């Protein structure tokens, strides 16, 4: 039986959603495989391991170490390599997140292995598995397969649906001691700019504003709508450049690539660089006063109108739904 490692990603003692998606991806790669949830963290690893099992991992392996609090390439490489050497897996799945993007190429290099990054779909299974990934900023797609060696992929968050959580699932949780040393990049401080609200890359709904929002205050109605929807707020480069909001909100070719279920583009013209970051969203709504705006070409639903008129009314309408 083959073994596939599904790497969880913990943040502040909790798992990010993409952790569960790695399990589901591993099952798609090989339905008969034994999927091992791997948790690398400084705390709470037993509970996180159980969560991986509840989401479909057959068993779990944890490394708990004080140096695994914040992600550093050196500490996580040592922990991950210890796990890989212990398990000798046939496949590895990680999230294509900030940490996953940093760690996976180094592991692939150490293993002298190929790596298919940022996949959004899996076709076929076993040795014939092919991986679909966007290229040219989502303007095209390619299918890739690994030559010899491990099946090693990173998955784009929000694209491969996790399995249903079932707390009746059980599995063995084992722990591995790893001697972590020689960390050459030391994190001195983390400045949180995104602590408020919903994580953009994992959000199911995003309300994004562009130049049409006109000012920092102009974003307020968007935040109110987002609050009602449980959505994250994003922005186009134009809005960030104009100083209406922080660059941490930027969606596009430079900036974040997102694939929410619902993307509401407000006062965004739809430059090709912005589309690169959001055009794969499942449903797109465009609200813009210019009927010729390019965003309408990718939108499923459009409203031509003044956003300062439309957005508050939309917020009220959503509020009314809940009553």
């Amino acid at each position, binding site marked *: 039986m083959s073994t596939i490692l599904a790497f969880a990603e913990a943040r502040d003692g909790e798992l990010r959603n993409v952790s569960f998606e790695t399990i589901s991806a591993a099952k798609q790669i090989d339905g008969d495989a034994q999927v091992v949830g791997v948790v690398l963290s400084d705390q709470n690893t037993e509970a996180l391991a159980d969560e991986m099992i509840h989401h479909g991992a057959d068993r779990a392996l944890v490394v708990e170490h004080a140096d695994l609090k914040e992600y550093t390439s050196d500490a996580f490489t040592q922990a991950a390599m210890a796990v890989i050497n212990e398990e000798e897996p046939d496949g590895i799945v990680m999230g294509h997140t900030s940490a996953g993007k940093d760690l996976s190429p180094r592991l692939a290099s150490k293993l002298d292995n190929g790596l298919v990054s940022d996949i959004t779909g899996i076709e076929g299974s076993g040795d014939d598995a092919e991986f679909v990934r966007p290229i040219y900023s989502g303007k095209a797609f390619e299918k890739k397969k690994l030559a010899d060696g491990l099946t090693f992929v990173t998955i784009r968050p929000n694209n491969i649906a996790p399995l249903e959580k079932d707390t009746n699932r059980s599995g063995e949780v084992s722990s591995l001691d790893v001697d972590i040393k020689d960390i050459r990049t030391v994190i001195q401080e983390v400045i949180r700019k995104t602590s408020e609200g919903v994580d953009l890359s994992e959000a199911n709904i995003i309300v994004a504003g562009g130049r049409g929002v006109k000012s920092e205050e102009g974003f307020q109605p968007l935040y109110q709508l987002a609050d009602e929807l449980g959505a994250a707020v994003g922005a186009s480069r134009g809005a960030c450049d104009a100083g209406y909001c922080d660059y941490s909100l930027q969606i596009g070719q430079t900036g*974040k690539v997102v694939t929410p279920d*619902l993307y509401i583009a407000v006062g965004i013209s739809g430059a090709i660089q912005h589309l690169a970051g959001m055009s794969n969203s499942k449903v797109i709504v465009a609200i813009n006063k210019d009927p010729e705006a390019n965003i309408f070409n990718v939108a499923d639903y459009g409203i031509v109108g003044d956003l300062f008129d439309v957005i508050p009314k939309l917020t009220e309408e959503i509020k009314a739904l809940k009553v």
Partner: protein
Amino acid sequence: MNIYVLMKKTFDTEEKIQVSGGAIEQDGAEFIINPYDEYAVEEAINIRDEHGGEVTVVTVGDEDSEQQLRTALAMGADKATLINIEDDVEDGDQYTTSTILATYLKDQEVDLILAGNVAIDQASGQVGPRVADQLDIPYVTTITGITIDGQQVNIEKDVEGDVEKVQTSLPLLVTCQQGLNEPRYPSLPGIMKAKKKPLEELELDDLDLDEGDVEAKTETTDVFLPPEKEAGKVLEGETDDQVKELVSLLRTEAKVL
């Protein structure tokens, strides 16, 4: 300080993508320096201007890649190396590129290597970390700030919108993120000077590599365009009606609320 910049040429961001014969049609396309690599070139020049030394821009490509190297020289880089694999490598991947770059860099005196954090065409983000691993030097990805004091390096790193302050030391590889700087445009005198700056051209042979040493570990089996999206529905009527209809459609038709 010996500074190296890893560069790739990519399609101009405005370029329309067409597929023929299972590959992206390259003929007639305009190429540019990968935008993230431009941040790397700009930062390398600034670091050299402050600390002295030399900036060498390196690319693995074909004879047309000279154009992007000349652009980097015109911005202010001192030397360029083109590793031309046109005749040797049919279908390379990130393993191919990083092995070639690491083999070249092993023979150089290197203090700092800068690269883009991702190329906007293949967008794997693998080459930087792979090169650092092969050279056994530390790396920091997606940096938005860097200051160097002797051997010590202080970095600001973008982590999905948060900022991490990281301390490390030379030799080092970093990959550059938007926000690091505003890349300059080459000046006319810069362009004139660039024509006379040294540009070395190497092939795999010169690095004691053969095709087998750099054989890809992944295979591309198909390239295709996303399905054309059907025209969306523009809602009619007064704002109140539009909003009501939108919410209703999102609930019943799109089923996302």
